[in-house]
C-alpha cells in the first residue's frame, strides 16, 4: 500500500457539475471522503451516482468544479490516480472467455507486475475473495455472485488504496450480499478506503462510517452515519423483541419519562418505541424492561427510520 496522506481527504469534490445532452446529471456537488473510511454513496436511480464515480475514477472529465483524488486533479494526473485506485463498474466488465487465473494474470501484467509478483498477488486476492478453488474456472461459467467476486479480485490486483465500487451488491442473492459485505469489512480492516454506491441506504447502514446522499444531481447529506440519524431523527426509534409476550409492558413503557411513543407491531412479541434522548437513554429503558419481567431477545435501532430518513431527503418519483 502507498503512503497515506495525513489530514488530507482521499476524495475531495468541489462544486462539480456535469450534463449529458441537456440533462444536468450533477448540479454543483461537493463532499469529501476521508482515508481508511468506508463511505456510502446513496441515491435513487438516476441521481448521478455513476456519473460521480466515473469522474472520480478519471473515466469522465467534469464539466465544472474540481475533483481531487489523493491530492491529484482528476483531469491532469490520470495515470497517477489510476495506479492507486480500483474501480468496479455496475455491470460485469470481465473478459468472460478467460479463466479466473488468466483474467487476474492479465490485469497483473497490465499493471506492470512481474511473473513471481503476479503469482503472489493472485493467490492473495483469491484467498481474500474466497475463490481459491475457482482459479481455473471459466468466468462465463460462474454464478453472478462469483463473477462479482472476480471483479472485486481484479480491482485488488494492483493493491489500490482506494476502491470505488458501483452498486456491487445489485443482483446478488442474500448470501452473496452478506459475503460481499464481509469481504468489504475485511478490506477496510486492511486499511483501504472504500467508496461504495448503492440505492439502498439500509444495505450500507451497518457497514459505512460515513455517507453521502445524492438526489437529482444535488448532495442532500454528507457526513457520518450517526449524524444522518441524529439530524433526521429528532427522537431515535428502536425495535424491541421479547422472548415472550409480557402483558402491560407497552403501557408501562409509554408512561416512562422521555418515552414519546410505543407501538405494537404485527408480531405480539415486538414493540417499536421512540424516546427523547435528552431525557432518557437506551440503558434506562433496558433496565425498565428487565424490571417489568421482560426477557429481551433483541433491542436494535429501527431500520425503518433509516429508510424514512432517505425518503425524507430524496424527492419522490422514479427517474
Amino acid at each position, binding site marked *: 500500500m502507498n503512503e497515506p496522506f495525513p489530514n488530507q481527504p482521499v476524495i475531495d469534490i468541489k462544486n462539480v457539475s456535469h450534463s449529458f445532452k441537456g440533462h444536468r446529471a450533477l448540479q454543483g456537488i461537493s463532499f469529501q471522503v476521508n482515508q481508511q473510511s468506508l463511505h456510502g454513496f446513496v441515491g435513487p436511480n438516476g441521481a448521478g451516482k455513476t456519473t460521480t464515480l*466515473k469522474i472520480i*475514477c*478519471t*473515466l*469522465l472529465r467534469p464539466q465544472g468544479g474540481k475533483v481531487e483524488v489523493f491530492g491529484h486533479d482528476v483531469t491532469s494526473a490520470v*495515470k497517477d490516480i*489510476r*495506479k492507486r*485506485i480500483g*474501480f468496479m*463498474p455496475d*455491470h*460485469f*466488465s*470481465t*473478459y*468472460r*472467455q*478467460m*479463466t479466473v487465473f*488468466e483474467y487476474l*494474470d*492479465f*490485469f*497483473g*501484467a*497490465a*499493471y*506492470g507486475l512481474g*511473473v513471481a509478483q*503476479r503469482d503472489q498477488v493472485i493467490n492473495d486476492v483469491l484467498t481474500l475473495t474466497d475463490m481459491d478453488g475457482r482459479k*481455473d474456472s*471459466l*468466468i*462465463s461459467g460462474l454464478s453472478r455472485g462469483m463473477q462479482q467476486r472476480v471483479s472485486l479480485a*481484479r480491482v485488488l490486483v494492483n493493491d489500490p488504496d482506494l476502491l470505488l465500487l458501483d452498486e456491487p451488491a445489485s443482483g446478488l442473492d442474500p448470501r452473496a450480499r452478506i459475503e460481499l459485505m464481509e469481504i468489504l469489512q475485511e478490506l477496510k480492516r486492511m486499511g483501504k478506503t472504500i467508496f461504495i454506491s448503492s440505492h439502498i441506504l439500509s444495505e450500507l447502514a451497518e457497514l459505512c462510517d460515513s455517507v453521502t446522499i445524492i438526489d437529482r444531481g444535488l448532495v442532500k447529506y454528507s457526513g457520518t452515519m450517526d449524524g444522518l440519524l441524529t439530524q433526521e431523527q429528532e427522537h431515535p426509534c428502536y425495535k424491541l423483541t421479547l422472548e415472550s409476550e409480557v402483558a402491560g409492558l407497552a403501557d408501562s413503557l409509554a408512561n416512562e419519562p422521555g418515552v414519546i411513543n410505543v407501538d405494537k407491531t404485527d408480531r405480539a412479541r415486538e414493540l417499536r418505541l421512540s424516546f427523547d434522548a435528552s431525557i432518557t437513554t437506551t440503558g434506562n429503558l433496558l433496565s425498565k424492561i428487565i424490571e417489568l419481567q421482560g426477557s429481551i431477545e433483541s433491542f436494535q435501532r429501527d431500520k425503518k427510520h433509516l429508510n424514512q430518513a432517505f425518503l425524507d431527503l430524496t424527492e419522490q418519483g422514479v427517474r
Partner: protein
Amino acid sequence: MFQGTFALFNRALCVDFRLRRTHLFRFLFAVIILFCLISAQLTRWTIGAPGLVLFAQIIYLNFVFILMSSISLFATAITEEKEEQTIGLLLMAGVNPVSLLLGKSLPRLISALLLLSIQFPFTLLAITLGGVTFSQVIAAYTALAVFLFCLSNLGLLCSVVCARSRAASTLVVLSLLSYFLGVPLLAWAVDAMVDQKWIAADSFLVNSVTQIYNWLQQSSVITQLNRILISGFSDTPWGMQFWSNLFLGIVLFGFACLFFNRFALTDVAMSPGRGIISKKKSKLFSPGRTWMNALMWKDFFFVNGGFGMALIKFISYGIALIALCSFIGYTTHSYSLEEIGLTLFWSMFIVILIEISLIAGRVFHVEVQWNTLVSTAMLPQSMAYTAYSKVGGCLLGLIPAFFYLAIGSVLSIEEIFNNLGTIFSEPSFWMTCVEVLFFWHLTAILSTHIKWGALPLAFILMWVGNMVFFFSVSLLSLFVKSVAAEGLIVVFTLAMLSGIVISHFLIKERLILLASR
C-alpha cells in the same frame, strides 16, 4: 394470424424512421444518383449514348447496394432478436414463427424496394439522354427487384440458422461467393481437366457441371443485367433469371420457416467463446502466462486464436498454395520457380489484405460488444497505447501469411525488383496504398459506431468515394485541359492521408467515450 407481423412491421418502420443514419443513407444514395446525372449531362457531347452510361452506373450501384444489404441488413433480421434474447418473448406473446419471419424480413425488404422504386423516375431521365429504352429500364429494375427478394430470403435463412449476426453475415458471403465464383471456378477446373485428358469430355461429371454452369449463367442477375445493358435489348423481363430467383427466394423462405423451431430458440451465448484456446496446459493451444504487453497478449490469443490458430493458418495456407501451384503447373506445363514465387506473393498479398480488413472490423468491436472497455480504460496507460497494443496483438496473427509472402518474394525477387521502379513512380500506386489504409481505418471507426456491418459499409463508402473521384477526374480532364490527372491523384492521396491521421484521434476519442458510458 398476422397481427404479430403487422405489429413487428409497424415497430420496424417507426424505428427506421427515428434513426438518423437511415435518412443519411438515403440522402447519400440520392446524392450519388444526382452526381451520376450531372456527369452524364456534362459528358453528353463527348460520350456516345450518355443515357446508357448513366443507366449502367445506377444499375450497378444498386447491384452493389443489394449485395451489401444482404450481408448486413437481411442477415441480421432474426439474429438481432436472438442476441437481445427476445424471440422467446415474441413467441409467448402469440406471434407465430411465420408471422415473426415475415414481420422481421418484410420491413427490410420493403424499405429496400422503396429505395429502388424512388430512383425509377430519375432513371427514366436516362431515356431522355439517349441510348436507353423504356423496356430496358423496366427489365433492369425487375431483375434487381427479384434478386433483392431472393437475397432477402437467403439472409433470412442464414439469420435463422446462425446464432449471431456475424456468423449469419459470413454465411451469406460464403453463399454468394459459391454462387458467383464457386461454380464458374469448378467449370474452369473441369475444363482444364478435360484439356489434360484426365477425364472424358462427354463424361457424366463434365456434362453435369456444364449443365449446372449454364443454368446458373442464365439465372444469374449479372448475366441478365449485362444483357439488358446492351443497346437494342428488347426481351421480356420475365425470363429465366426472374422465375429462378423468385422460385429460389420462396424456397429459401420455406426453409427459414422449416428450420425456425430447430435453430431460433437455442440459447445464444452471452459471452464470447474461447475458440480453439485450451484451458489445459498446452504449448500450442493454451495462452500461457500473460506477456508484459498484456493487451497484445489478450488480443493475440482471445481475438486471433493464438499460436494454435497461427499453426492452423500456416498449414492451411501451405496446402492451398501447394494445390494452386500444382494445378497451375500441370495446366500450363511451363511453370518456373519465379512464377511460383509470384503466385505465392500475390495469393498471400490478397490474403493479408482480407485478414487485415477482418481485423479492422473486429479489433475494437469486440470490446464494445462485450462491454469490457471500462476495465481496459481504467489501466494506468493512455487509450492510444491500449488501442495500438490491441492492433499489435491482432497483427501478430498475420505471421503465417507474411511467411509465405516472404518466400514468394525471395523466389521472385528479381521480377519484383525490376518492377519496383516502375510501380513506385506511379502516383496511382501510392494512392491505392493510401486508399487501402484509409479503408481499414474507416472500418475500425465504423465498428465502434455500429453494431454490425462495419466492413460492408466501409466498402460501400469507399466504392462510392472512388466512383465520385474518378468521375471528377474524368470531368475535369474533359473541360479543364490544364488540370493533370496526376495532380488530382496527389491531392486525393494527401486528403486521405490526413483522413488516416484524423481517424487515429477519432478512434481514441470514441473509445474514451464508450468506456465512460
